[in-house]
């Protein structure tokens, strides 16, 4: 067994490396448990694409609202963005609450040289990788099904990741404050994520909403993400709207991440 330890072998790693080590830990977990995520991450959006894009879409005439495109083509990039937000919402709720409350794995990491902010950095980086991976898998299937227009969707994938992160960061900040069993999460899914998915421009343009509802849609990441993601996919990007969408998403992410960093620090070192 270990003999008298004059000095420990442990040392402090830099902040980026620290976050990547947290990512490595997440990856170790994912390698064992990825199967459970395939249905919600990939199968579900593909089913939506089949049922709503191809099935229901066969009854929809290409119009100005769909940019003159077949409905399935119109839907495919938006579905990528909306699914990204759905995965992000799940990943930033229960797993984070669990790491604080049930498994308490964050406390284990916080006892090592890794700081709370670095734990958050790793967690968010891992989520971005997760979103990119799931999105890429979905795009592959969508491409095989002929629902894509061209290589622009690669940009849409980046937009989808950003949109997911913009939603996940503030939700993660909230999850980090909870002491409950997570009942609040159902409210988030039912009253924010689902309405946002259905009504914020993914399945039909928000111009179809009653005038008084539209401003609400404008404040959702899904609306900004789908607008930007579609333009990227169809090559119809124009400077000012794109910049506006991008700014909204980046600012939401940064605010959320800042708040989450504060809440992680409070909870892990109080």
């Amino acid at each position, binding site marked *: 067994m270990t003999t008298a330890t004059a000095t*420990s072998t442990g*040392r402090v790693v830099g902040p980026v490396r620290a976050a990547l080590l947290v990512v490595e830990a997440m990856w170790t977990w994912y390698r064992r448990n990825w199967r459970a995520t395939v249905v919600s991450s990939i199968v579900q959006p593909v089913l939506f694409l089949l049922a709503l894009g191809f099935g229901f879409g066969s009854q929809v005439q290409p119009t100005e609202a769909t940019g003159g495109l077949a409905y399935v083509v119109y839907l495919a990039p938006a579905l990528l963005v909306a699914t990204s937000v759905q995965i992000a919402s799940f990943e930033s709720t229960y797993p984070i609450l669990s790491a604080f409350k049930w498994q308490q794995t964050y406390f284990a990491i916080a*006892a090592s040289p890794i700081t709370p902010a670095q734990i958050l950095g790793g967690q968010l980086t891992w989520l971005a990788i997760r979103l990119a991976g799931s999105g890429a898998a979905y795009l592959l299937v969508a491409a095989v099904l002929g629902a894509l227009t061209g290589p622009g969707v690669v940009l849409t994938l980046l937009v989808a990741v950003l949109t997911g992160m913009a939603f996940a960061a503030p939700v993660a900040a909230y999850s980090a404050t909870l002491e409950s069993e997570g009942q609040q999460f159902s409210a988030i899914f039912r009253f924010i994520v689902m309405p946002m998915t259905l009504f914020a421009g993914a399945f039909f343009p928000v111009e179809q909403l009653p005038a008084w509802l539209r401003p609400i849609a404008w404040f959702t990441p899904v609306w900004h993400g789908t607008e930007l993601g579609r333009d990227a996919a169809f090559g119809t990007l124009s400077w000012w709207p794109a910049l506006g969408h991008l700014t909204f998403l980046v600012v939401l992410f940064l605010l959320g991440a800042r708040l989450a960093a504060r809440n992680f620090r409070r909870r892990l070192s109080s």
Partner: protein
Amino acid sequence: MVDDGALVRARQLVKRFGEFAAVRGIDVDVRRGEAFGFLGPNGAGKSSTMRMVGCVSPRSDGELTVLGMDPQRDGPAIRARLGVVPQQDNLDTELTVRQNLHVYGRFFGLSKAHVRAKATELLDFAQLGERADDEVEPLSGGMKRRLTIARSLINDPELLLLDEPTTGLDPQARHLLWDRLFRLKQSGVTLIITTHYMDEAEQLCDRLVVMDGGRIVAEGSPAELIGRYSTREVLELRFPPDAAAPEVALEGLADRLEVLPDRLLLYAADGEAVLAAAHARGVQPLSSLVRRSTLEDVFLRLTGRTLVD
């Protein structure tokens, strides 16, 4: 800073949570190579102290140095050289036993090869070799505890913090754990242990402080404390629940008398002699027991309360 042998040095250390003071000004010196105990009931401030020493809880007032550094400024550098066994296991139960060690070791900047070799060594030490590639979830409480201890050793810590290491374990699992901790101590690791088990403190600690209500009420080796605050032996007498109080008849027989809900404790150098004298006075207990004094008696003397109900 000069290494004067004190791995942990606290002066008037205070921890407040809002209005509530969990730790109310304690002085502590933990020397290299010793096993140091914090003994006290739940809520005494032991865990708050441990969290400050573990650099995951900033102090509210007073001074604290750990490994010669300031936790507020050098938290990560100190934590790199600590091992921590928290009160509640926080293993990743969806990973294998071995993976828990691998993943954790990496947080300390250790190479994959180093962590692999170290994990094999620690699995052997914790007697978990046969379960190495099983998921953690179904393991017994004792096994999870041993894995948590193994994990805390992944960086060859100079100082190991154990917060109630055997709470909730069955006797066999406790003894196995004590044996492992004793070996660690033999190999030169400095241990800080919190416990509310007297036998644990007596088994493991060279020196300890008794905490109550956020303060240190006594300090010394287990033998010193027993010598100072108790007698060599204790006579325990039990009476029928409805019997008249026999305290009067027992007056003056022992150095000190404690009345507990279910029994009387008589403190004396020679328990058998007191028992004989009690019999001579016509006292008829249901049962009697003469035993050595323990830290439990010290605690009772110092606080007027028993430690564990």
